[in-house]
């Protein structure tokens, strides 16, 4: 293999945006002040995420996280933070559902129109659907976020 190797075969899962967010997450920090928080564990592989949420009224103001895990899980947490700002709980759950469908199947044909923009941001993660064992990496942060919004402290994705 050489520098000229363009990694086309590896890019179906690890698109540039994932590598970038995985390497340099924008939101990987514990929030000083927050209203909700939760922890997510994936016992099968040892991934762990902590998530903090600052609300602004009924809506999500800001999200920060600390993750111990693979590029997929870190990038997914980071993209989550970028797409949930300004959403209320129901909106967030709708996006969560849509994202889970995307991660499991590669597409989300029945996505509500108001989610389309966010789903475009999340789309680079759609490649995980070919790697069933990595779907949980992509959804762990989301499970933790929903747990935080629901007032649970812990969630285990199995």
């Amino acid at each position: 293999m050489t520098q000229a190797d363009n990694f086309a075969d590896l890019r179906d899962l690890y698109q540039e945006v994932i590598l970038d967010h995985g390497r340099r997450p924008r939101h990987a920090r514990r929030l000083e002040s927050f209203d909700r928080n939760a922890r997510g564990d994936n016992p099968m592989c040892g991934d762990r995420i902590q998530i903090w949420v600052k609300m602004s009224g009924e809506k999500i103001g800001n999200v920060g996280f600390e993750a111990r895990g693979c590029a997929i899980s870190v990038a997914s947490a980071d993209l989550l933070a970028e797409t949930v700002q300004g959403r209320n709980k129901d909106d967030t759950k709708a996006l969560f559902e849509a994202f889970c469908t995307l991660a499991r199947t590669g597409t989300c044909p029945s996505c509500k129109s108001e989610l389309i923009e966010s789903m475009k941001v999340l789309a680079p993660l759609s490649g995980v659907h070919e790697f069933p064992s990595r779907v949980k990496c992509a959804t762990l942060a989301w499970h933790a976020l929903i747990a935080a919004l629901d007032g649970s402290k812990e969630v285990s994705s199995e």
Partner: protein
Amino acid sequence: MNIMTNPAALDVDRIRRDFPILTQTVRGKKLVFLDTAASAQKPRAVIDAMAVAMQTQYANVHRGLHWMSERTTEAYESTRDAVAELMNANDRSEVVFVRNSTEAINLLAHSYGRGVLKPGQAVLISGMEHHSNIVPWQLLRDAHGIELRVAPITDAGELDMTAFESLLEDGKVGLVAITHMSNVLGSVTPAERIVSIAHAYGAKVMFDGSQAIVHRKVDVCALGCDFYCWTGHKLYGPTGIGVLWGKRDLLERMPPFLGGGDMISSVTYEQSTWAAVPHKFEAGTPAILEGIGLKAAIGYVRAIGYDVMEAHEASLVEHALSRLAGMDGIRVLGNAQQRGGVISFIVDKAHAHDVATLLDRQGIAVRAGHHCAEPLMHRFNLDSTARASFGIYTTHAEVDALVDGLVRVREFFQ
């Protein structure tokens, strides 16, 4: 796929072609295999599924991030869906894989028995249980101070429902653990009534369905029971795999049984936490190939259909009972109203072992002994019986061969 349209008319010849072993000869005679209740023969679908997995698609499950492991996990886990569908379970996570019925009942006796039942409570079994549904409860009794009660059976080999109910009346019984079909008498127990009476007195119900699920459609929602177990090798599947189904909330309340890989959420020396059900109860590398084989067996059975199988067996049983009734010196044990394809009998002047050996000499395989049900033998003042049991591949001609064989046995022992 439904092979038949007329449920009474299973195409046995066609079925037999799916079971390669049935063309074997034994001691120079055509094999007449009437020991299906002990363990059923395997159709080509099962043999192939296991061989193909080993040839093309195998790795350990659950933890692999690589293709072989992911595909094998999918194949193995899809058996859980097939089992849930077969039993009409609400949720695939209610299906716990074990080695066999025996392990299922031991799991329950350990986890529910020691973890949920309290000393002073009782477990109620019946007078026609297999040792597998007696001994685990004795061990529980002796270790944990749980009383063991036994509901008697009638001379006809049916559960004595009045006695059964009266044993529940003091409210101490926490769990009824009872067969859904006797492996000796063939009697099918009145499952819905058992459940409604037991529940009325606050007891949970587990059915030992090792025999029943081979002969009857089992619908755990319709039965309303709390646990149900069975064993793969009797349902035309491989050895090494069985099922404990349990209601999810009950499984969640139960502590784990075996500890190890796959059943944990996290492990430190100080403390470990458990995976969600069903994995909490599945420690270590599971019976992967056997799961794959079991799925093929379930598919095979469902393609034939329980209505067809039941009708076929009913007609075999009727034929056998009427022919045996016409024979001098042969006595069939029990005559329950509801019964499946298992018939125990004794022969005048000939011990059951001699009967079995003399039949075997003619190529006819029956079982003889106490059938892992010594207390039931004692109930009928016997030490052993001979037992013929039928499967989907059994023919009327094989029943006739048994009768002819028994005529010779009678003559031989005069």
